[in-house]
């Protein structure tokens, strides 16, 4: 006669409990999803996968197996941002076939006041908004008033970038920093904000999806490094922001097309 503990008996009985078709489909679907993740683990990190002895069963209320969490941590470490807190919250505490995305740029859209002074100035320029006297005074005496965008004023970006580049030093990276702050880099991780998260493209947990996001993240990291260097520099001494505004104003052009369309009779 086999002797079982109460826990073993309960676990054994629960494995034989009849489930509804809906429950069975959900459980099988989760298993299939888990298999896809494990296959990716094996393909992306074969050595770590071979060494792993983490459990393959979902424990308690967890959504993922410990082996999957191990894979997510490796992904976060080597391929693309996948912080634990994102995995914990994404989305509605259910398993998901899509790779969780989180804004990794400078998302000031809801709390600009809490960001550093250089971010506030660059965001003001990127928005084409009016810089108040307080902001200009903080940069230093004689700071020009930035010409706002909109109406018939447009920024000649090539000219602005060229002026900054010719100035040399960290000034050469200001256009990159401005693109990052303006969420206009063309790089998903940097342009994404919590406001635009729902509208952004989704990537399935596939090799293609991971490769694409990892490539984007490589580009994003280079841009972020440059941006951080620029922001640290301007944080120590905001005076060069006056020159940034000067270059900005010199690169502003009148949009003749806009003027023509405005003067054209309707």
């Amino acid at each position: 006669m086999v002797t079982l503990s109460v826990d073993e008996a309960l676990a054994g009985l629960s494995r034989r409990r009849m489930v509804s078709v809906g429950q069975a489909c959900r459980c099988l679907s989760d298993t299939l999803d888990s298999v896809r993740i494990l296959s990716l683990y094996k393909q992306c990190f074969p050595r770590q996968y071979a060494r792993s002895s983490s459990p393959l069963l979902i424990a308690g209320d967890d959504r993922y197996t410990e082996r999957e969490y191990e894979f997510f941590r490796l992904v976060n470490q080597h391929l693309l941002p996948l912080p634990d807190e994102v995995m914990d919250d994404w989305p509605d505490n259910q398993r998901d076939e899509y790779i969780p995305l989180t804004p990794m740029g400078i998302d000031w859209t809801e709390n600009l006041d809490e960001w550093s002074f250089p971010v506030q100035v660059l965001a003001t320029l990127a928005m084409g908004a009016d810089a108040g006297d307080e902001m200009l005074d903080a940069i230093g005496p004689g700071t020009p008033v930035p010409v706002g965008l909109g109406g018939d004023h447009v920024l000649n970006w090539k000219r602005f970038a060229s002026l900054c580049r010719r100035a040399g030093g960290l000034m050469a990276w200001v256009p990159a920093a401005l693109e990052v702050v303006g969420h206009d880099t063309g790089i998903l991780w940097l342009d994404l904000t919590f406001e635009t998260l729902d509208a952004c493209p989704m990537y399935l947990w596939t090799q293609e999806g991971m490769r694409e996001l990892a490539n984007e993240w490589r580009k994003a990291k280079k841009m972020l490094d440059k941006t951080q260097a620029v922001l640290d520099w301007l944080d120590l001494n905001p005076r060069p922001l006056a020159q940034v505004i000067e270059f900005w104003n010199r690169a502003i052009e009148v949009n003749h097309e806009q003027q023509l369309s405005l003067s054209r009779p309707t």
Partner: protein
Amino acid sequence: MSASNATRAASDTSPACEEIQREVLAALVSAPRHVNPAVALWLELQQHGPLSAEDLMAASARIENAIAQGEAERDAVGSALRNLVVSQPVPAHFVPIGF
């Protein structure tokens, strides 16, 4: 005979339908025991005990099929049940044996 034909036959009161009703009962009585494929596979996996990742990977095509078949069967059964619920009750002209 499909479940939807059976429900149509059940609501028909014409004497010609009696034969169909007999066929339905005969089909029900002789129908083999069947468990939804999704439920069957889930129970099988549960009873198997801990599976290796490789076992699960090897079983993925089977799992996909079981989900597809299981959902299709669930929908068919659900549809038949809905038809039975809205069917007109009809008194039988004979005593069904075997129930």
